[in-house]
């Protein structure tokens, strides 16, 4: 059931209780978690935080803790499945689900008692009406009982015939209703997409309670930017949400304009920026950033020699000497940096890149520390999925969570380095895939599989990195191919996950079009194909379009998919 008043129905209910927080492993969930943690610390709510990366971990954590907790808060997990069926909780357990995954499972929507959804009501949900999918079972039984009451033998035969007719009519109606119900449910659950970022929902809650801070606002911004970086929301939605956050930003950060009352340079301030879309460019060199951002790399076709020449032309067009552009951004000549954004935008539109600038926010504290929201997203995501064998003390989740606090700048810088490595690895893999024509069209979709010996293939055994790689690959492929039909196809990407166990991780992403609504049908498709071929699959991830598969079953799985989707 949807929670209309977040404060009354959610926060006030848990403020005096002990709560278990189950947080999924993505940056949006981390940000929402930080905001909620800050609120809990403010109000001394005794909570336990358990990170979960998949359904199995969610179930395990629930089973372990269900004796001690009655209130569970799930962040970015649990909305798109029937929670009650999976977890089998007691009658007095309550779940508060703050999830951006859509579509929300109908059982979760219509359960009145145990499941509360912290979802904004204006999110386009299109939940089917109650009567269309649920039917009271009592009606039928009453009628059949009334029918079997005894009556006089003289009218019995006539009544018997009427009863038979009535019963057959009812059965037919029932079948029709069920068929309609299946259709409605199929339409509703066919496509997966994402709604408002959980971090923004949490920030809204904090704002309603007047406990919002600049820090929380920054986390909300990072959560939203994560959705944009991972291509989970449409451009329209992103711009709308940016507008909402912009109002909060000006409310919290207006003191700089006034010369007399301006804050000290060490205070944290957020500013709205219409900045370049180049990944990490302020912490890298401009050249590297141009090479490793998917937008520029795909449009300039940097995997080919032609592309490299175009890049040089692009730089020459702007009047930026190569030597300057290849050194660290902070050391570039100030005269070049002054009008950089406008210059780049002008030149870029000549080369076919019209959207090189994007609306975003930046954070600024101290003299040296200035970060764009997308920088933080890349850093945190790569920390969370880093494969480096660090000490056993803290896991990646905790490290990533820590790096979101402003006091842990060293972790943030570590994350930025990892992100640079990751972006470079992605670009190199994309370039090699396109040059060696690894992306093949299977009919209804494109397919690409990474071999085991590919450099950096271990980086791509993690779901978020693999998704990022596939999106970049699809963008580059669309720019490189001449086949008009192939440009509209979705992509399935496979990468080896665990060599010993022989598993492969497979990701399906929707087609890349100008105005795509980012709706992904691969979740259901994967399920059906797995069923029909009895392949050994593990649908462990919260995003249904990411699965693990045994390498041997891969070919028959793909064949089933092809036949399903054509």
């Amino acid at each position, binding site marked *: 059931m949807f929670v209309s008043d977040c404060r009354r129905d959610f926060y006030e209910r848990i403020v005096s209780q*002990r709560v278990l927080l189950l947080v999924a492993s993505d940056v949006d969930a981390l940000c929402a978690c930080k905001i909620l943690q800050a609120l*809990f*610390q403010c109000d*001394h*709510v*005794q*909570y*336990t*935080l*358990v*990170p979960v990366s998949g359904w199995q971990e969610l179930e395990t954590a629930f089973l*372990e*803790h269900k004796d*001690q907790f009655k209130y569970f808060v799930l962040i970015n997990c649990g909305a798109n499945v029937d929670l009650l069926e999976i977890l089998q909780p007691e009658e007095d357990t309550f779940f508060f689900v703050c999830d951006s995954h859509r579509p929300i499972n109908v059982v979760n929507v219509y359960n009145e008692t145990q499941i509360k959804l912290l979802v904004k009501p204006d999110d386009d949900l299109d939940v089917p009406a109650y009567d269309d999918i649920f039917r009271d079972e009592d009606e039928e039984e009453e009628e059949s009982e009334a029918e079997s009451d005894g009556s006089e033998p003289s009218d019995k035969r006539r009544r018997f015939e009427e009863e038979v007719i009535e019963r057959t009519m009812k059965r037919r109606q029932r079948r029709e209703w069920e068929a309609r119900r299946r259709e409605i449910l199929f339409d509703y659950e066919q496509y997966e997409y994402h709604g408002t970022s959980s971090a923004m929902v949490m920030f809204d809650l904090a704002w309603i309670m007047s406990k919002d801070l600049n820090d929380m606002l920054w986390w909300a911004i990072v959560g939203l930017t994560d959705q944009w970086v991972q291509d989970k929301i449409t451009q329209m939605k992103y711009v709308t949400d940016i507008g909402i956050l912009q109002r909060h930003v000006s409310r919290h950060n207006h003191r700089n304009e006034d010369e007399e009352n301006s804050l000290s340079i060490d205070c944290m301030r957020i500013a709205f920026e219409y900045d370049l879309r180049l990944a990490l460019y302020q912490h890298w060199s401009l050249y590297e950033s141009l090479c490793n951002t998917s937008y520029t790399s795909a449009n300039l076709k940097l995997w080919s020699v032609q592309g490299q020449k175009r890049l040089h032309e692009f730089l020459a067009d702007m009047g930026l000497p190569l030597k300057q552009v290849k050194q660290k951004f902070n050391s570039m000549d100030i005269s070049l940096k002054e009008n950089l954004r406008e210059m780049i935008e002008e030149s870029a539109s000549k080369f076919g890149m019209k959207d090189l600038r994007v609306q975003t926010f930046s954070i600024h504290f101290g003299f040296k520390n200035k970060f764009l929201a997308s920088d933080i997203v890349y850093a945190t995501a790569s920390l969370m999925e880093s494969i480096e064998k660090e000490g056993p*003390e*803290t*896991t990646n*989740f*905790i490290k990533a969570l820590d790096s979101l606090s402003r*006091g842990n700048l060293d972790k943030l810088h570590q994350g930025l380095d990892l992100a640079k490595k990751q972006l470079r690895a992605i670009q190199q893999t994309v370039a090699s895939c396109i040059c060696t024509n690894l992306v093949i069209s299977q009919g209804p979709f494109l397919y690409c599989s990474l071999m085991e010996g590919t450099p950096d293939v271990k980086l791509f055994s993690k779901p978020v990195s693999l998704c990022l790689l596939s999106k970049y690959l699809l963008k580059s492929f669309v720019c490189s191919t001449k086949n008009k039909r192939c440009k509209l196809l979705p992509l399935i990407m496979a990468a080896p996950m665990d060599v010993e166990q022989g598993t492969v991780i497979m990701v399906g992403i929707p087609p890349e079009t100008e105005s795509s609504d980012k709706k992904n049908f691969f979740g259901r498709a994967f399920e059906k194909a797995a069923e029909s071929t009895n392949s050994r699959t593990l649908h462990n991830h919260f995003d249904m379009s990411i699965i693990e598969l045994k390498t041997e079953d891969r070919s028959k799985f793909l064949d089933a998919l092809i036949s399903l989707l054509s």
Partner: protein
Amino acid sequence: MPSLPPRPPKLGNPRGAPRASPARARAWAVPAGRGGVSPGGPAPSAASHWLRGGAAFPRARRGGMAGERAVGLVRELQRAAGGHLPPFRAEELRQALEEMRALYERNQADVSEAKSGRTDLIFLIRFRHCCLLRNQRCIVAYLYDRLLRIRALRWEYGSILPNAIQFHMSAEEVEWFNRYKKSLATYMRSVGGEEGLDLTQDIKPPKSLYIEVRCLRDYGEFEIEDGTTVLLKKNSQVLITRACSPNPFLFFSFPFTPMMCPRPGVQPCLIWHPWISGKNLSVFPRSTFCPAGNASS
């Protein structure tokens, strides 16, 4: 002559009449190379040539001034600021005591001589006596100050001191420390009702009622004071009441060691990370629950 308080006689003038001349006094002090004021006045090294009975005093070249070692001990303690306990200087202490013994013996010898008529020795005797008193004062101050520092260590570190510090203590000091611990424990048990009151916790009033704990390894169930159990698993974070953190109920029932764990066979697995305030938590001493012996906060 105005009645001045008795001052140690100055032995700088060979003509016999004591002449208070500060410049001369300082002149004696400087060649010895040490900055402190010598206890019995200027060094008798130059004057020893007219002492009868041989030059029995330690001279600047041979052994230094009287009371030098004792003052050296005190100076070392003064330099070790901030409650730090330097190693126990048994050797210097022994030398100082040796010096005192030597002075005393010579005094004994001279007293008997003075009784039999040699009144000019009285000044010397008085001088040696002042040296003895000075030494005694320095040595007692040294020992007492060390004990005070050791007592402060109990409040800072808890019942078990780190090995490095124990290494610096003499056997008697260790004995004293144990007795102090016992008496403190008896007192704490007697105060505060049934379970006693652990006075070494929360010396400064805590800023928050709750602390956030990050579990680095699986611990299992942990019971808080109000009876609720918390399951502590690896990589979870828990916000719980501060009252339960250093386990006051364990303080009295088990010997408090860093490797202690109420469940046998389970390795200690918590590192309590107070990071709401981020600063040090004056809740419990730093060497608690540190499997590797390194405190991190």
